């Protein structure tokens, strides 16, 4: 276990380093990208631009700029170019909103996908299976921005069943929190429900052919018990791997479209704004933030794997 933690920590560090260099590098090579001018404003004189360049060190060589930026990030002093907000505290203050969005959405899609995938597999070839799989395949074919916009239009604007975007924190009013987030949750979840239930169904159908499932049946276990205890449990693992990665990237801000659409002040919304402005610090921190979660959840999923499947050993 200790070795596992050490190795994962090292690979996390390596990934963070690589991510930061790549992102930083991308913006370094863009011609006509000039943060100094952007900060100085539209009617800045060359002198003002020079002051800004000096203040932010934009004249320094790439590696120095990179090192400075990293230092600022890890000391929590980095500010974005656009608003000069502290990026780290901005991520901190926005993270609860992202958690509020992502965790329930993830639970919804995971649970729904398990139920639907199971029903579909158990009724394979019958009407329920076909209907569910059609829904699932439609689900994975609709982009979230279209789905979210149409949901918002119909349910929030037209029928006014749901509130007109926004976010209420869980601590201030749990009921309102849920009320405001229902549409965003489902916008995110619907796509993944489709995808996950399809994968799960196919895993289940694969698993049903396994010898040990036949054994379980031969033992005289009820169909339900065979399914729950033997088939489902072993079929969940590939789903979990996907889940770890998807969940991690969502926490890192991949829900940017949903957050922007529904005005949820999460990290994704911040990243979306930053990307539009080519505002490097938030993009950089966002990328590293995501990479961190990817590694973290990769490790967590491996631990879960090891718990679920005694054959799996935790290695680096």
């Amino acid at each position: 276990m200790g070795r596992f933690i050490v190795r994962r920590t090292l690979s996390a560090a390596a990934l963070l380093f690589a991510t930061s260099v790549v992102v930083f590098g991308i913006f370094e090579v863009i011609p006509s990208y000039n943060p100094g001018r952007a900060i100085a404003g539209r009617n800045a004189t060359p002198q003002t631009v020079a002051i800004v360049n000096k203040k932010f060190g934009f004249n320094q060589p790439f590696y120095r700029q990179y090192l400075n930026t990293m230092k600022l990030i890890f000391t929590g002093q980095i500010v974005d170019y656009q608003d000069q907000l502290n990026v780290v505290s901005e991520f901190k203050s926005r993270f609860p909103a992202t958690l509020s969005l992502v965790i329930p959405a993830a639970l919804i899609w995971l649970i729904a996908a398990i139920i639907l995938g199971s029903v579909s597999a158990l009724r394979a070839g019958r009407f329920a299976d076909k209907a569910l799989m059609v829904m699932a395949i439609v689900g994975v074919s609709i982009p979230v921005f279209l789905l979210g916009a149409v949901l918002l239009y119909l349910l929030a604007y037209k029928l006014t069943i749901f509130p007109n975007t926004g976010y209420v924190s869980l601590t201030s009013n749990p009921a309102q929190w849920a009320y405001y987030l229902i549409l965003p949750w489902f916008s995110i979840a619907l796509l993944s429900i489709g995808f996950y239930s399809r994968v799960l169904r196919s895993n289940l159908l694969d698993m049903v052919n396994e010898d040990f499932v036949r054994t379980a049946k031969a033992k005289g276990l009820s169909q339900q018990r065979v399914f729950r205890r033997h088939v489902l449990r072993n079929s969940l693992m590939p789903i979990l791997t996907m889940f770890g990665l998807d969940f991690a990237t969502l926490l890192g801000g991949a829900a940017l479209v949903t957050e922007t659409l529904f005005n949820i002040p999460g990290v994704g919304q911040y990243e979306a704004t930053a990307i539009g402005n080519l505002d490097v610090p938030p993009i950089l921190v966002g990328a590293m933030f995501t990479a961190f979660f990817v590694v973290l959840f990769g490790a967590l999923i491996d631990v879960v794997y090891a718990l679920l499947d005694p054959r799996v050993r935790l290695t680096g």
Partner: protein
Amino acid sequence: MAERLLEVEDLQVSFATEDGVVRAVDGVTFTLDRGEVLAIVGESGSGKSVTSMTLMGLTRGPNARFAGSAKLKGKELLTASEEDLQHIRGAEIAMIFQDPISSLSPVHRIGDQIVEQIRAHDKKVSKGEAFDHAVELMERVGIPHARARARAFPHEFSGGMRQRAMIAMALSLSPSVLIADEPTTALDVTIQAQILAEVKTLKEHSDSGIIFVTHDLGVVADIADRVIVMYAGRVVEQGTLDEIFYDPQHPYTWGLLGSVTRMDRDPPKRLPSIPGLPPSLIRAPRGCHFRPRCPHEFERCAEVPPLEARVAEAPDHLDRCWLEVEDKRTRREIEGRIGLVRDAA
């Protein structure tokens, strides 16, 4: 006379596939009594496993069709409800599978898997009691340190130990019929012998009827009372062990026997084999299924030979070959051994 456990009458199993109907089992008839060991022998695809699994209702499905009858102590299995079958599986008929590593759930402890079976049939047994019983069973099949090992996972067992665990599990509810489906195939030769010994002990100490499914005639020589030889869904020959071993009537059986390495004879110059592959069951050859691979094939083989007694002195020794009994007896000897190939040079 011992109690009759199984009565299988003209059992037919077919599966609808998108390429056509597969007649996996085509007219199998046999009985099994208490304390008896019946061996079903055949190559892959011969229908031997389908036959045994059908008894447990494990081949049921939307595309499966069954005909004939299979009765356990007089109770029809083919039409039994799924619920009835659940009570029969594991308790009345238990099964030992071929590959213990894939047949045991990889994620559950061995002991728990046995406990699960026990408690599936009797909820009143507490977990602790069931576990104690599981340990007892494991000891009985020769697993050392059973109490500790019951907490281990299958991958922590050796192949032989896993198969012993499988057997322990199958025995847990003292079933009247025990089906061993190639229980030794996946194992090392030395382990095979141990497991076979285990089955033999079983035969001696329990009064279950045992169906031993295998492709290897050699392994049943010691334990079987009667033998059924299957090829491409059909029974090609059936009789007592002695009848099959000492007076085999079907060229396919000769082939099987020729493949048996026998310690009491000189080793052959080269390992005999049956050339070719078993046929597709969707468009099986007309007449005798073995025809395309049979060196003794002649015109009449285009007609399906009935399964009937052809050896006058053995009314229960049935086979499906048009050749005359005497003719067969001369044809089957090669280099002093029973074999399939006509010209062994």
